């Protein structure tokens, strides 16, 4: 198949997908953004196996007309972040449930729902909806982002005007085995504003989620999310961020289980002196069902004297697959850039695989960028050291697995949140020990 034929096939698939989905109407200003997204999508087509960044992860489940059914698990006795004082916003099968949510009014916060937004003039949201997504297709197309902008009717719009005392916590619940959710969140932090965003819960059998994060000068954004438990999950989460001068952006994701989880982040540092960290820990056991987890990062430095860190760790066993595709692009003039990228996998057997594609593209001469990608097994010397002190082999192994993941978890600044996730991960590791 020629390139032109391949593109034609992708475009045809995009048109067919949009037809099946029925474009939402009645969203006033949102309609214009949706139409623009449809035409973007028709241009680039749906992702296909031959696309450069879809070679390691098959997009089929994410582009299929309908979600693949996934069993609904009972709600956990103690969900993540349970002990954290926070403002909860609840979604059920991808639909905002205001009754189950906390009062959305809080100091320095303006929260509204996307479902209502079309009927109101929310200028900042009008400027932001689909804007960072639309800007993110060069040089690599992100068609699932455009698909989301075209189809989304649910999501939250959060504008932060100062320091927010409690984290805002998005809790995704599920009731339907075949729910197919599209969520689109907008987050705008004004100059000097600070907030923490938490996300947890299964959301839907299939989830396409876009979060557009716009940080004004000196803003500080912390983001911690968990993707856990539901084995049949098919999810793509796209994070588009624009970082102005002196802003701080920190995002951490914990992934366990899931048939297909693609976490894509496109981060543009546009101002000087900004600091960005994006990190993730993933643990997958193929004996629970298919496990495929993919972190795809595209981080652009276009400001002077900025730092970026990418830290990704994956523990894989029983045929689990982990993917890391991480790129640092340093644009001309982005001098004094300090870029760091680490992707490591710990393989607990010979059946699992880790596919890594680290990339650096540097167009400035006064920068420091380093990257490392490694795959390894449990260190037998370390294991014997622990066992020789009387620690049973199984526990010693768990200690080493958790120690391996700790580097990524330590990127979470808030200690109670970090400890919460560490103990959850410890539970997972102990349940999956052999």
């Amino acid at each position, binding site marked *: 198949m020629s390139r032109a034929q391949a593109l034609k096939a992708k475009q045809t698939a995009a048109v067919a997908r949009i037809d099946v989905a029925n474009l939402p109407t009645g969203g006033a200003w949102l309609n214009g953004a949706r139409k623009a997204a449809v035409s973007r999508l028709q241009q680039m087509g749906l992702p296909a196996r031959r696309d450069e960044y879809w070679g390691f992860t098959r997009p089929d489940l994410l582009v299929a007309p309908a979600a693949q059914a996934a069993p609904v698990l009972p709600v956990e006795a103690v969900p993540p972040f349970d002990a954290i004082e926070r403002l909860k916003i609840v979604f059920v099968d991808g639909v905002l449930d205001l009754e189950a949510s906390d009062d959305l009014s809080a100091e320095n916060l303006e929260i509204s729902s996307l479902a209502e937004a079309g009927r109101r003039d929310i200028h900042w949201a009008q400027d932001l909806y689909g804007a960072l997504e639309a800007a993110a297709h060069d040089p690599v197309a992100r068609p699932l982002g455009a698909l989301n902008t075209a189809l989304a009717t649910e999501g939250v719009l959060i504008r932060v005007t100062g320091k927010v005392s409690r984290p805002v916590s998005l809790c995704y619940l599920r009731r339907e085995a075949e729910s197919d959710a599209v969520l689109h969140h907008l987050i705008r932090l004004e100059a000097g504003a600070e907030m923490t965003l938490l996300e947890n819960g299964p959301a839907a059998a299939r989830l396409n989620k876009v979060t557009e994060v716009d940080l004004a000068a000196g803003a500080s954004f912390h983001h911690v999310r968990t993707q856990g438990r539901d084995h049949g999950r098919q999810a793509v989460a796209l994070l588009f961020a624009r970082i102005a001068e002196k802003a701080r952006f920190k995002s951490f994701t914990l992934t366990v289980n899931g048939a297909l989880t693609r976490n894509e982040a496109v981060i543009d540092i546009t101002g000087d002196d900004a600091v960005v960290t994006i990190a993730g820990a993933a643990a997958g056991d193929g004996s629970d069902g298919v496990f495929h987890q993919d972190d795809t990062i595209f981080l652009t430095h276009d400001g002077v004297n900025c730092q970026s860190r990418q830290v990704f760790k994956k523990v894989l066993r029983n045929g689990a697959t982990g993917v890391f595709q991480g790129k640092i692009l340093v644009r001309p003039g982005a001098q004094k850039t300090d870029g760091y990228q680490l992707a490591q996998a710990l393989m607990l057997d010979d059946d699992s695989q880790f596919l890594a594609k680290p990339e650096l593209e540097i167009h400035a001469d006064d920068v420091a960028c380093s990257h490392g990608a490694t795959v390894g097994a449990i*260190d*037998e*010397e*370390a294991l*014997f*050291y*622990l*066992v*020789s*002190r*009387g*620690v*049973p*082999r199984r*526990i*010693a192994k768990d*200690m*080493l697995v*958790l*120690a*391996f*993941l*700790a*580097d990524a978890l330590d990127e979470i600044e808030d200690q109670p949140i970090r400890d919460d996730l560490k103990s959850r991960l410890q539970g997972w590791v102990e349940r999956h020990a052999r």
Partner: protein
Amino acid sequence: MLEIKDLHVKLEDEDKQILKGLSLTVPSGEVHAIMGPNGSGKSTMSYVLSGKGGYEVTGGSATLDGVDLLEMEAEERAATGLFLAFQYPVEIPGVGNMTFLRTAVNSQRKARGEDELSAAAFLKLVRARAKALKIDAEMLKRPVNVGFSGGEKKRNEILQMAMLEPKMCILDETDSGLDVDAMKLVAEGVNALRDGKRSFLVITHYQRLLDHIKPDVVHIMAAGRIIKTGGPDLALEVEHNGYADLLAEVV
């Protein structure tokens, strides 16, 4: 009492015999030293006794107070009272020294059917023992051996020994890489654990460690077995004359 009888050991993956009829007895409460040229099998002996993989026992036996060590898993040997102070203690990033120590102490207690130490009781104990070895609180908080100097690593080995209170301690070249002051500190730590019942097997290349940890018996090991056993004077003899004469006697 540690009793090794006619122990034969080869590498698991290669046809290479390392221990060739090693026999050795360390009665309770005694300190025995083993010296010997490089490659004589001293470290292999310590690994085989403590249960490291990669070796195959082709003959002989090793017992601690009559219990067969070779049939046990490594963690069971530890719980039975065997301790190996490593020549090269392993760095383990991500595992806190305290967490490790507490897990080790309580795993052993559990294996022996004893009550586990409470967090408070453990903390009290570890602080007291660490202080005696000049190990500060900061070192205890760090990941196991990560960023430790050579001396700190060896002191950390002795701290583990003090916390685990083994019956039989094997010290594999604990003096290697230590300056004189660090060696004295480590030796003091070892001497503090001598209580008339606990036994020690000290593997060393140098007599000077034995100035600080005074042995009851000195063995010379070569080519996988003990070729000569004597009193502390034997170590002095090796220090002055090397191994050539002793090896010649055997051949």
